[in-house]
């Protein structure tokens, strides 16, 4: 069995699973913090109940995020030792900074917050959840900066047979890290918002705790509306950075084979990877793809055939993931705008509420597809144009990886079911009676 392929599969499975839990942490922490702030400001006990109810869901989600994150940090060593040796000077240091600067704070203050309702003044208690919200979003920055370095390595030189740091500031402040970061946390905010709206919709449909869930829904709605619109802007910005820095990925995401000027954007495309063309290209908006990727209607966009076959990422998966993600992004704007007009008559909009209930998974799907575009679109490189994925794995037996992969699948599936079951149960039961 090929240890590289199995290691890739294992990394993909464990990261995607991890990322089912992390983005909710990013968004829900802020929403819970806003609820508790309102409680402290107004003294209205309903906001305290809201804080506790949503905070409880936050906590179940958080613990799964934590434990699945540790395995990721260690997998760089266990499965990707050649990668770790080659880039540890840069990549390892960013991960270590993440733990010391942000993750300690997040974990410690979350525990203080959860267990400390009777131990702290209301203001101090609310401060704790803000510290959790801020440090989880700071933590995300370091992780994304590390990933951005794999997409666009900067601030290094090849010395002593490896990549060594020569400009730390360049690594941690490169624009690609910033656009990727905002794009990622906004997706987490949308996930958090839709999560709260969806569960609130479930109860509003049943006329249960109407005031409680109307307030929750509206707070999450404003939050989601702002970031859904913001995400379109960030996605566009990030896409332009991608086409500047990783043109192969853009070509794969758009299934563009030939290098052309003034490239049109086809609404319906079906790629034919084997024959290096598309089966179907329909409903084309002239020159729009040039505009989207370069901000210039007549700009030249490189096609996949500009690169030798062994340097191209897989096309169909990247293309389909990208299309669906973008489509979902626009859907989130539509749903939240509709919500804005219905915000004062939620109870009498059962269809909208039902749609919002079933929309809970959609932002998750969008986020996972985004990571597929980012990571699969970077192939065949593990560090873009520096180190190939097939040169990065550990010198270990395939059978070892097969066993661990099977164990991950079993443990994570069970873990996913139990976490989902517990969260769904708590969400359905609703808040504690007064």
């Amino acid at each position, binding site marked *: 069995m090929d240890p590289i392929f199995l290691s890739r599969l294992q990394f993909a499975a464990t990261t995607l699973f991890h990322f089912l839990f992390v983005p909710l942490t990013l968004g829900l922490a802020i929403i819970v913090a806003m609820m508790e702030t309102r409680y402290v400001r107004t003294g209205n006990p309903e906001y305290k109940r809201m804080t506790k109810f949503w905070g409880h869901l936050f906590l179940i989600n958080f613990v799964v995020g934590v434990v699945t994150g540790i395995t990721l940090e260690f997998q760089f060593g266990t499965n990707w030792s050649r990668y770790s040796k080659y880039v540890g000077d840069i990549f390892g240091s960013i991960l270590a900074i993440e733990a010391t600067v942000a993750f300690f704070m997040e974990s*410690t203050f979350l525990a203080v917050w959860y267990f400390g309702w009777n131990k702290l003044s209301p203001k101090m208690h609310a401060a704790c959840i803000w510290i959790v919200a801020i440090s989880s979003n700071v933590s995300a920055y370091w992780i994304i900066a590390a990933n951005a370095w794999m997409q666009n390595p900067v601030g290094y030189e090849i010395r002593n047979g490896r990549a060594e740091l020569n400009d730390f500031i360049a690594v941690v402040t490169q624009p690609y890290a910033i656009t990727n970061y905002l794009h990622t946390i906004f997706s987490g905010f949308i996930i958090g918002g839709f999560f709260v709206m969806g569960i609130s919709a479930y109860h509003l449909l049943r006329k249960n705790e109407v005031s409680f869930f109307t307030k929750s829904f509206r707070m999450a709605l404003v939050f989601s509306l702002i970031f859904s619109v913001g995400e379109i802007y960030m996605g566009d910005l990030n896409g332009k950075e991608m086409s500047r820095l990783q043109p192969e990925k853009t070509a794969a995401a758009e299934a563009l084979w030939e290098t052309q000027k003034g490239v049109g954007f086809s609404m319906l495309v079906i790629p034919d990877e084997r024959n290096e063309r598309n089966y179907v290209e329909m409903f084309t908006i002239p020159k729009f793809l040039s505009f989207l990727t370069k901000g210039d209607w007549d700009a030249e966009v490189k096609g996949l055939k500009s690169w030798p076959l062994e340097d191209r990422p897989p096309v169909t998966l990247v293309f389909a993931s990208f299309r669906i993600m973008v489509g979902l992004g626009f859907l989130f704007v539509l749903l939240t705008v509709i919500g804005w007009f219905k915000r004062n008559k939620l109870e009498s909009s059962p269809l909208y509420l039902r749609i919002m209930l079933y929309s809970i998974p959609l932002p998750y799907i969008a986020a996972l597809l985004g990571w597929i575009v980012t990571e699969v679109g970077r192939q065949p490189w593990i560090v873009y144009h520096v180190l190939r994925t097939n040169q990065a794995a550990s010198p270990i037996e395939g059978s070892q990886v097969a066993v661990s992969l099977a164990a991950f699948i079993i443990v994570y599936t069970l873990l996913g079911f139990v976490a989902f079951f517990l969260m769904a149960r708590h969400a359905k039961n609703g808040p504690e009676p007064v």
Partner: protein
Amino acid sequence: MLETIWFLLWGLIWAIYFTLDGFDFGLGTLLPFVARTDKEKRVVYNSMGPFWDGNEVWLITAGGVTFAAFPTTYAVMFSTLYTPLLLILFTLIIRAVSLEFRNKIASQSWKSFWDACLFIGSFCPALLFGVAFANIFQGIPFDSNFIFQGNLLTLLNPYGLVGGILFVALFLVHGALWLAIKSDGALHRRAKAAAAGLWIFLLVMAVIFLIYSWFATTLYKNYLANPVLFVLPLITVVALLLTRFFIAGESFWKAWFASGATILTAVLFGVVGLFPNLFPSSIDPALSLTAFNSSSSQLTLTIMLGVVIVMVPIVIAYQTWAYYLFRGKVDEVMLASKESY
């Protein structure tokens, strides 16, 4: 110079991790033996409730600084110890979710299931960490291509197992003392008796380990070259004896600090003996990874040193505050609250 400082920091962060998470491991391992009623079990869970997660971040940091400061060691250590390391990670996952999930459903079988998981998730990592470190002390069979010549059973050799059992013994005493601090009544009495009884077991294991290390490892080489270093194991011995002294005097906080100092200095004893090796090869000592041949660039070591010097004291400060905040016993108020395990 930077490499030496980083070597010591590396050892210190691992030692802090074992000291802090050690009592959690001890508590989880003790659970089936000291807690009889559901309420007693919940006291055990809640005694580590506000702390275990912050403690576990020290592991993430220990892994992170290994990666950052000694990337070659990180790569070779983690890939050669593939199976034991993943076993540790899986069992740590089980531990974390046991803590979080147990009290979410009021069914007896649900709770018993997670109690068993907590035991496995506490005992196994404690044992395996000890096995792993003892094996590192005596050298790991990896060749010039950094390929591990062996399997999990290679690591479960007598010296490795002695190291593993020693870790378990250290953590059991540490955990029993924490439980004595946090509990009342019958549970408190059982915790106290467990601490006193397990202390003898710990003493025996410590003596065996120290003697066995003389024959199985080269740990004493640095100490014989610089006899002043013997101060370190001397502190370990004094801390271990003080632990028993404070147990007898029922000063459980002091006993807990003494057992913490025992763990901290015991790990540092091994680390100092290992210097400059981080990951010695038992096939050919020339292949051993050291602080000097596996480190990051000077720039990275300098930046990371700055980060650690600024951040680690801050982390210790707010974690100390959190410990202080929840210093009281696990009482009825805490158990009755919705926000508890």
